[in-house]
C-alpha cells in the first residue's frame, strides 16, 4: 500500500553550512490494513517521511508510492487517497468552530454538498467531538485538537492515514482515548502510518514498526520480533540510595551487561541494567557488587520495546 524505495531528502542549510540530510536511503513497505509505527529519536526523519508521503515535500532521491501512485508525479491522486493529521496545536483555524473547520476541509476535498453535513456529523462522532462541534477551536484542549486533526483527516474517507505523533503532549486519559480511536480506525479498514515517541503506544497499537535513526531503518519487524532481535535477555532494575557513580562502574564491569543507564527520581537513582540473552548474570551478582552501597527496590523484568529501542540506538551510535 505504501512503498518507499531508497528515499533520500536533503535540506539546504543557511549560507556556509553543509546541507542537512534528513533521510538517507530509507526503504519501507507497508501493507494494506496495517497499523505501522515509525519510531526514532528527534531528527531521525520520521516527520520528513510523513511529509514526503503526504506530498508536502519531494524526495531528493528515490521513489515513494501510495497505492501504486507516485507522490511526486501523481500528487493530486495520492492526496485523494490519504488523510494527514500532524499533531499539536497548529494546523487548525482556531477562530472557527470544529464544524466550520471540517466544512472547509470537505470543500477542499470536493465532497458533494448533499453529503457534507452527514459526513461532518459522522467524523465528529467517530472522534467523540459531537458535543463540541460548534465551539471555537481556540477553546479546545490539546486532546480535543488532536481529535479534530484526525476528524479532518477522515473527512473524505481516505484509505490511508498518516498520524504524526498524535498523542504527543496529551494527558494519560486523552492519550488512551486516542489509542482507542486509532484501533477503531483499523477496524474500519484503514492503513495507518503512525509516528510516535511512546514505545508502549507503538507496542500496543502497531502490527509492525520500523526504528529509524539518521534517516535510515535500523530495525523493521513486529514489536515482539524487534524486542527479541536485540541482544537483551532481561532487564534488572536497582534503586541506589547513595552516590551511584561507583555503582555504575561496578555493574558495567559484570559479564554480559549490554548497557547500564541511570533514571533519576526523587528518592533514588535507579540503575537500569540490560543483560544479554542466555547470560548467567542476575540480581544476585548485581547486589553482590553493590554490597558497599545502600540499595532500595530491586527487581528483574522482561525487556520492553523501549529497552529494545534504546539498545538499537546505542548499537547504532557505537
Amino acid at each position: 500500500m505504501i512503498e518507499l524505495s531508497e528515499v533520500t531528502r536533503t535540506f539546504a542549510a543557511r549560507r556556509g553550512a553543509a546541507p542537512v540530510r534528513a533521510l538517507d536511503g530509507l526503504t519501507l513497505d507497508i501493507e494494506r490494513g496495517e497499523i505501522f509505527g515509525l519510531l526514532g529519536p528527534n531528527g531521525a526523519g520520521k516527520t520528513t517521511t510523513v511529509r514526503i508521503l503526504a506530498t508536502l515535500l519531494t524526495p531528493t532521491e528515490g521513489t515513494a508510492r501510495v497505492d501504486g501512485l507516485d507522490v511526486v508525479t501523481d500528487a493530486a491522486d495520492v492526496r485523494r487517497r490519504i488523510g494527514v493529521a500532524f499533531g499539536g496545536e497548529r494546523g487548525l483555524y482556531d477562530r472557527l468552530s470544529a464544524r466550520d473547520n471540517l466544512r472547509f476541509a470537505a470543500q477542499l476535498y470536493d465532497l458533494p454538498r448533499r453529503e457534507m453535513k452527514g459526513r461532518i456529523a459522522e467524523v465528529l462522532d467517530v472522534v467523540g467531538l459531537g458535543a463540541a462541534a460548534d465551539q471555537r477551536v481556540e477553546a479546545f484542549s490539546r486532546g480535543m485538537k488532536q481529535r479534530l486533526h484526525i476528524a479532518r483527516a477522515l473527512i473524505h474517507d481516505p484509505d490511508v492515514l498518516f498520524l504524526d505523533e498524535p498523542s504527543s503532549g496529551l494527558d494519560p486519559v486523552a492519550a488512551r482515548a486516542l489509542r482507542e480511536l486509532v484501533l477503531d480506525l483499523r477496524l474500519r479498514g484503514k492503513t495507518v502510518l503512525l509516528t510516535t515517541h511512546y514505545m508502549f503506544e507503538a507496542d500496543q497499537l502497531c502490527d509492525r514498526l520500523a526504528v529509524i535513526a539518521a534517516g535510515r531503518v535500523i530495525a523493521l519487524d513486529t514489536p515482539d520480533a524487534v524486542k527479541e532481535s536485540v541482544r537483551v535477555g532481561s532487564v534488572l532494575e536497582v534503586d541506589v540510595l547513595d552516590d551511584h557513580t561507583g555503582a555504575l562502574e561496578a555493574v558495567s564491569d559484570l559479564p554480559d551487561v549490554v548497557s547500564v543507564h541511570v533514571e533519576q527520581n526523587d528518592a533514588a537513582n535507579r540503575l537500569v541494567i540490560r543483560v544479554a540473552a542466555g547470560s548467567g548474570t542476575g540480581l544476585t551478582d548485581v547486589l553482590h557488587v553493590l554490597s558497599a552501597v545502600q540499595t532500595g527496590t530491586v527487581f528483574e523484568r522482561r525487556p520492553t520495546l523501549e529497552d529494545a529501542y534504546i539498545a538499537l540506538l546505542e548499537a547504532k551510535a557505537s
Partner: protein
Amino acid sequence: MRLAIAAWLLQLRLLSRSPFFGWMALLTPLVYCSIAAMMSDGHASTRTIVGAGLMGAWSTTLFGAAEALFMQRYSGTLELLVGAPRSLVAPVFGFSLATVTLGVYSLVAAWIWSVLAFRTGGDGGDALPTVIAALVSMAGLVAVGVLLAGVYVVTRKAMELTNVLEYPIWLICGVLFPSSMLWPPFVVLGRLIPLGWSTPALDLPLGAEWGGYLGASLVLTAVYLAVGVVLLRRVDTLARVRGTLRLR
C-alpha cells in the same frame, strides 16, 4: 468556483474575528479620506475621495493577502491547502476576493465619511467615469492579490515584503495625486501595475483616452491574473522541493 466562494467566506469570517485587522480596515479609509479632504481645504472632489478609498483598498489588499498567507503558514493551515487535491488557485482567489471586498468597503466608507465629516460627497459632475475607473482599479487589485499570494507561498518574508510595498505603490500609481507630479521613471514603474493605468483615468472624462487607460489596466489585470495562476500552479511544486511550507 464553489471552493473559491468557500475560501472567500472563510477569509471574511477569519478577518471579522481578528479585532486588529477589523479596526485597521474600519479606520484606514477614514484616516486617508480625512487627510485627503483636509489637504483639499475641506472641498474634496470625487477624484480625491475615490483616491483616498483606493489607498485604503490597496493597504487592505496588500495586508490582507499577506496576512492571509502569513497566517495560513503561521497557523500550519497552509499545508492543508497545499496538501489538498485541488489547486491552490481557487482558495487563493477566494482569499484575494475577500480582501478586495474590504477594499470596496474602503471606497464606500471614504465617501460616507467625506459626506458626514466634511459635508462633501464629491463634485458629482463626472462621477460615472470615476466610479467605473475605481471598479477597474478594484479588479486590478484582485489580480495583484493573486500574484502576491503566489509569492507569499514561496517566501517566508511576506510581512516584510508587504511593509516595503505599501506606500511606494500607491505613490507611483498616482492613487491620491496624479503620478505626473513625480519623477518620470517612477511613472514608468507605476505603469507596470494595473493601478498605474486605472488611476489616471480617474482624472479623465468619458472618452477615448479614458477608455485607453482602462483598457490597458484591464489587459495588465488579465496578465497579472494569468501569471498569478501559473505561479500558484508552480509554487505547489516549488514549495515542496524547497520545503518552505512551514515556519522554521
